[in-house]
Structure formats: C-alpha cells, structure tokens
C-alpha cells in the first residue's frame, strides 16, 4: 500500500499548483466571470502549454498519463483555486469520448483538444432525463445524406464555447433503452442546431440546444450505430471522478478560508474560533473533508475497473461528496456570518461552484439509489 504521489505526479502537481496560483488571483476570478466565454482563454492556453490537458489522456490517445489518479490530481488542483475552465467538458467528456470511439479522422480533434485549440461539449441530457443516462428522446433518422437529428438537449455545459458538439440520439429502441443510442460529432454551426446560451451558477456557460432537422453526414457518427451506452457510461464515470476531485479541492479552499476567518474575526473581544461550538463544527467539517479525500482516492483507483466494480465506486463517491459538499457549504457560510453571503468575498465563488457539483452526473439521491441497487440490495 502506498498513498504517495509518484515522482511524475508530484512534478505535475507542483507545476500546476504554481501556474494556477499565479493565474487565479481573486481579481482574475472576476474578470473571468465577466468574460464572454465564462473562462479565460489566456489561462486555458497556459494550461495547455504546460501539458495539463495531455495529462488527462493516455499515451495511446496522444497524452502522457490519463489514469484515474491523474484525473483526480489535476481536478483537485483546479478546485483549490476555484478554476472555471471547461476541462471536464472539453477534455474528459468530449476528448475522452472521441479518443474512445472515434475513427482516425475524428481523432484528429483529440490532438487539438490536447493542444488547447478546440473546445467540445457533450449534448446528452434532455429536459426530462434528469440523471438517467439511458433516457434519450432525441432522434437520428437515416436519410440519403446521412442522418437527421431532432430533439432538445438541456443544460449542455460549455456548448456556447464548443466548436463541435457530441450529440446523443436514438437510432433505435424506446426512450429509456440502453440499446439504440448513437453519438454524433457535429460542428456546432450545423444548420438546424440552435443554442440558447446562459451563464451557469459558479462559472462557465451552458446552453439549451435545439435540434430541428439537423442534417449530418454518415461521417458524423461517432462509434458504432446504436451502441454508445457503454462509452457514455465510461465517460460519465471519468467525469464524475473529475468533478468529485474538483469538489475536494473546493472544499479544501473553503476549509482554509474558514479556518483563517475563525482565527481573525473578533466578536466579544476574542477571535470567534475561541467559541467551542464553532471549534467543534470546524472539526466536523475537517474530518468530513478527509472522508471526501478517501472517497475520491477510492474512485480514482477503480475508475478503469470493469463497470460492475467501477459503478459501485462512482455512486459511493458521488453520494458522499454530495453530502459532504452540502455540509461544507452551509457550515462555512454560517461560521462566516453575513460576510459569507457576499458576492465579493472569495468564499462566495467557492460555495456556489461546490453547490453545483450535486447537479451534474447524478446527485446525492440518484447515487444513493444506484448504490443500493448495485451493492446493497
């Protein structure tokens, strides 16, 4: 047993931590939040330049790492600074799916992703699908020119920045069937595809995507027709690991801010950290964050396992992270008092971002139920 980072990962972590610390000052956060893209293209370029995006892909895929522990390491660091870069969408989901299912022509996009020059988004969830991975109503109908896409995709994170979308659509079967789902890699500018863009709480952009007679050629098909479910599940497992690791980083940042505040804020002539009730609550927060860390390690170690094993860990970790995230958000605001509710103070950004973690890739309740189905019942 060894919980230390390898030398390579240690170097990656050191380099990344330095870069992010210099890039994400409190002011940068504001600039980024107010930019058109919801992230800073300058920071994105510097992340690509230091090889960060490549760390999310295996050598075979054109990267240099790509294991669960690499994903976790990178996203934890991103979380620690409250980074808003669309790494999960462009790289883990988008790049990951193309690397796993794409033909040679399509795989050229992975290189661009790693180089930082292309952005992607996965248009999978629909207005009523909630977190149900097999719920796909959007249809892909064959015609002489390829396929026609029709349907609606909901809260497609990073779609407004994406050059290409990966659209899931049904080529066979019923709404909730696992079989019959196909993926299409299509330019966002395709005729018949319209986006309604909006900012997301905690940073980044998303869009409601309407597909109305969107004509794509057969070359757009990503992977075999009707058999995309497993690839989607794998991509979601990896994205869940990434967002859980990011949540861990956010929690650490929040913990540090709160500890600092307890030491410096004075009421009744003493630092509020002298009040035992706050001491105990801070202790609970700290111990739950250690639980969160272990949960992320568990998932990182099993994300590439067979689906039956992997998914038990996906659900255990996402459930635990969701529960702890809520506690960390609510306790940190409470212990700060009024200042914890202001947009200007750093904590605001971190708690918003951490709150949103429970609204992607399955929430606490969804994963509780899935864990029951996989491991308890």
């Amino acid at each position: 047993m060894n919980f230390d980072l390898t030398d390579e990962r240690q170097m990656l972590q050191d380099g990344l931590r330095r870069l992010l610390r210099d890039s994400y000052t409190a002011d940068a956060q504001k600039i980024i939040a107010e930019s058109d893209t919801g992230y800073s293209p300058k920071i994105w370029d510097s992340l690509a330049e230091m090889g960060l995006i490549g760390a999310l892909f295996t050598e075979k895929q054109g990267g240099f790492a790509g294991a669960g522990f690499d994903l976790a390491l990178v996203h934890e660091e991103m979380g620690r600074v409250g980074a808003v870069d669309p790494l999960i969408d462009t790289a883990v989901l988008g790049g990951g799916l193309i690397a796993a299912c794409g033909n040679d022509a399509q795989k050229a996009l992975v290189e661009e992703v790693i180089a930082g020059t292309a952005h992607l988004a996965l248009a999978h969830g629909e207005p009523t699908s909630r977190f149900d991975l097999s719920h796909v109503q959007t249809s892909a109908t064959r015609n002489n020119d390829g396929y026609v896409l029709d349907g609606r995709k909901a809260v497609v994170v990073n779609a407004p920045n994406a050059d290409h979308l990966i659209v899931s659509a049904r080529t066979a079967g019923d709404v909730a069937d696992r079989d019959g789902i196909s993926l299409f890699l299509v330019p966002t500018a395709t005729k018949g595809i319209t986006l309604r863009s909006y900012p997301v709480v905690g940073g980044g952009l998303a869009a409601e995507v309407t597909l109305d007679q969107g004509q794509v050629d057969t070359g757009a098909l990503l992977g075999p027709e009707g058999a995309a479910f497993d690839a989607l599940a794998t991509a979601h497992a990896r994205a869940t690991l990434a967002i859980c690791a990011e949540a861990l980083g956010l929690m650490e940042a929040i913990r540090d801010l709160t500890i600092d505040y307890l030491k410096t804020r004075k009421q009744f002539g003493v630092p509020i950290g002298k009040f035992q009730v706050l001491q105990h609550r801070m202790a609970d927060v700290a111990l739950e964050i250690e639980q969160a860390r272990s949960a992320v390690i568990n998932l990182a170690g099993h994300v590439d396992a067979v689906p039956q094993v992997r998914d038990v860990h996906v659900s255990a970790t996402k459930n635990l992270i969701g529960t702890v995230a809520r506690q960390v958000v609510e306790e940190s605001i409470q212990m700060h008092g009024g200042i914890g509710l202001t947009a200007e103070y750093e904590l605001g950004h971190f708690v918003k971002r951490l709150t949103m973690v429970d609204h992607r890739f399955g929430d606490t309740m969804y994963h509780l139920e899935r864990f029951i189905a996989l491991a308890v019942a």
Partner: protein
Amino acid sequence: MDLNYTPEQRAFRDEVNGFLKAELPTRLSDKVRQGKSLTKQDHEEWHAIVNQRGWLASNWPVEFGGTGWDAVQRHIFEDELTRAYAPRIVPFGLAMLGPVLQKFGSREQQDYYLPRILNGDDWWCQGYSEPGAGSDLASLRTSAVRDGDHYIVNGQKTWTTLGQHANMMFCLVRTSKEGKPQEGISFLLIDMTTPGIEVRPIVLIDGGAEVNEVFFDNVKVPLANRVGEENKGWTYAKYLLTHERTNIAGVGFANAGLANLKRIAQAEQSGGRPLIENPHFAARIARVEIDLMAMSTTNLRVISQAAAGQAPGPESSMLKIKGTVIRQEINAMARTAVGPYAMPFASEGLEEGSNLEPVGPDYAAPVTGQYLNNRKLSIYGGSNEIQRAIISKAILEL
C-alpha cells in the same frame, strides 16, 4: 385543550381571506410565487391596499392607528397573507420602529412619525450592525457627539436591508465610552438625505442587492431625533428585539415553501414517474412536513401564551432555530428537485421588466438563488448559535 380556532377566530380568518381574494393584485402574488424581486413601488402599492383596510399596523394598539389584535389574530393574519403569496409587510417601520416609538418616543415623535409610517411617507431601515459589531452588537462604534442642538455622527453601518429605498434610518450610535458598552448607546432617527451619508449596495451571492453599507461623515442629526434618553438606546433596541418575535418561526413561509416544493416534485420526472413518488425524496418531504406540523403547534402555544400576556421565554429562540432550519431544508430540497435546471444563473430573469423566458421550467429559475440567499435566515436576527446560547443560559440557569 382544544386545537381548533374559536368560531370568532375562524370568522376572522374568513374575513382576512375575503379581503385577500378581493384586494390582492394577481400581478403581485404572481411575482411572489415565482420568486421574482419586488420593487419599492410593489411594496408601497401593497402597503397602501392593506392600510386602506385598516390592517397595516397589525401589531399596534388602536390608539396609534393599529388594529389592536391579539397574538392569535396577528398570527392568523400573517399566515393567510403568506399562503396567498402576498408581499410581506416590510417590517422596519411597522413591526420594529413603531412599538419603540409608542413605548419610548416623545409625543411629538409619535404624532409625526407614526402616521407617516402608516401612509407610506417614510421608508425606514435598521442601522444596527457594523463591520466590527455583528453578534456582538454592543461593541458598535459609530459615534454621535453633541454639538449645540445637534449630534455629529461619524462611522459606518452595514447589512442595511433595503437601505437603498429608505429615506429614514433608526440607528444605534455610541454617545459614551464610559462604563459597560451597552450603557453608552443611543437610539437616533436619521434622515437619509442629510449631507454626509453615502449608501453603497452589497451584492449577495445570489446576485441580488438587498443589503447596503451606509457611511456617515460628519452627519448632523437634531437632538430632537433621539428616542428616549441618551445612553439608554440599548434598552430600546432590546425591547424591539423581544417584540419582533411573533412571526419568528416563519410558519407561513415554511408552509408556502412546502406547497411549492410539492408542486415542483409533482411536475418533475424521476425514473419515469413523478419525483414525488420517489420513496427517497418523498421520505425527505415527509420528515420536514412532520417537523413543520409540530412546529406550527409549538408556535401556536407560544402565541397563546403571548396572547395571555406572558413574556416569551427561550421558546422564541427555539422557534427561530427550528423555523430557519426547516425553511432552509425546504430550499435545499427544491434545489434537488429541479436537478440540472438548478444550474442556469437566473438572477437577471428575476428582475423587474425582464422579458427573458426562463431556461427550464418556470419554477426552477429561483431555487438556487433562494437556497443560497436563505442561508441568511440562520445568521441574521441573532444567529442560531446566539439563539442556542440564549436557550442554554435559560435552561442551565447560567
């Protein structure tokens, strides 16, 4: 023991209901139900309607133009208003300042200010908290120094709710540094248009601007604007705090929130059926509803005691804690209920005059903002930690 309202109380409830049906503009109740921000004009419009009926000062005695209602009637009134999604009655002038002026104000102050509160001539804000004086309010430092027939006020207040609308502030200031900090505080009525006052908005994490910082730079306040005696302001402020306790549990808000949550959970689908049929989610709703049912009765017990003339004990602190925890849990569940549609940042769409269609279902737009914003419930009005300290002091006889 009888859990039912008396026939008189029921008749009163029906009367309130009839009034709401006839007089509450749908435009306003729609806004409240949809979680949209209310403008100053919205509040003023509603106050005028209620005042027309003679019910605006529900906690004032008749001699000052109030209703003279007992605690049970006030409760019924507030409860019906919340259920009907009426805008809340803005508390600063009516619930907070009014009783203080009635008890401690001069005859001139009563004659001048009380009718102006009823008629909506003044919008009051509460100037207690300062950057360095939150829970430890008595450590406040904004100073008022006598200069002839005026005080000269210097310092800063913060968290001033709706101060951007206010033309008047009731304010705690330091008039003496001798003795205990509580003994050097005075209660001033300050005209916000006096030169030297600057109001700056504080944006909260939901994107809304409901609170402000207020800066005082050599602001002249007539001595006549002091309520009661110099250095006795703490007593008046505490009187105000014990009297702003009738609706402390927020039962009406919790009921409205729960109804809204159930509506969302009916409309949302989970695994091919309404979310409300999901046993895990239904169990969470049930737990909070069970808690709320018991709290409503605790609330009525305290109200009955108050109506019988007993001073509230630590029960009001218990209600504050329970009430806020229940409301916050309802907000958290609403966020869970809308799933991914909690993510769109909707602040803009909730502003007056916005034509933006909501991104997801209309009920989804306000939930994240409300969840974040309502963390304030356990912070202001005496944080839940301070309330627990009050309870433990009382029961452990510390």
